[in-house]
């Protein structure tokens, strides 16, 4: 057991615990904060995989922008702990949890059969930097990159249109 593996296992355990806490908390603000914690751990795992640029994007866009949007909406709608939303075990939820376990078993079956012989690729050391990502992005993936701007514009217009509409009196 080397140090990297030990740190990975600690981070993985923290990620799983924070994800479980996220879906079991009653207060949506607490759930959102656990999800932010989870996103930070995943950003650290990206650094383990030498993907520095994606790790920074993960923190600024996911843990920053998207989760602030979530917290903003939760506070805008003034959602507290709602008794109607209380998590109690019924048949529907039991079936849903069993289906989730079945899905995990299916994925685990394929992951178990999957044997990786090689370690991390030597090219990956310099692959995740801003320079190399930028080179690939602007050379091979320029068209999808430009299309993304249209997607973001459509999302902007759609979000404003949907959120602006007033209640019909």
């Amino acid at each position, binding site marked *: 057991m080397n140090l*990297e*593996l030990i740190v*990975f296992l600690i981070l*993985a355990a923290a990620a*799983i615990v924070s*994800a479980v806490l*996220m*879906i079991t908390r009653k207060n*949506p603000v607490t*759930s959102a904060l656990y*999800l932010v914690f*989870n996103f930070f751990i*995943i950003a650290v*795992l990206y650094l383990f*995989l030498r*993907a520095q*640029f*994606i790790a920074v*994007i*993960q923190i600024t*866009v*996911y843990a920053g*922008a*998207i989760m602030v949007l*979530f917290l903003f*909406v939760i506070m805008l*709608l003034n*959602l507290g702990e*709602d008794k*109607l939303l209380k*998590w109690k075990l019924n048949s529907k*939820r039991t079936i*849903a*949890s069993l*289906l*989730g*376990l079945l899905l995990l078993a299916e*994925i685990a079956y394929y*992951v178990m059969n*999957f*044997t*990786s012989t*090689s370690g*991390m*690729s030597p090219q*990956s050391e310099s692959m*995740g930097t801003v320079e190399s990502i930028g080179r*690939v992005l602007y050379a091979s*993936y320029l068209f999808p990159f430009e299309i*993304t701007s249209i*997607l*973001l514009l*459509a*999302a902007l217009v*759609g*979000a*404003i249109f*949907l*959120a602006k*509409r007033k209640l019909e009196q």
Partner: protein
Amino acid sequence: MVPLGYYIGLSAILFTIGVVGVLTLRNAIVIFMSVELMLNSVNLALIAFSAYSGNPAGEILVFFSIAVAAAESAVGLAIIIALFRNKLTVNIDEVNVLKW
């Protein structure tokens, strides 16, 4: 060093937690957060495959996936706000207009 299977296993567990969250929860916003968790777990698997195969296409795909997730969360939260304005609830059991 960490074997690739560990990253894929962690990704699978996080994805399953997200699926269980979507299926069991009743608060639309927390369901939406579970979807974000599932997106993130798949991004982790993509980055792991990308790093272990030495192909940068996985990282580019994650870059686009994050851009799409940002657009998706903006529109999704606007829909939740519109829903709350009309129904005064985010409990999806009470939103059954389109239910057959």
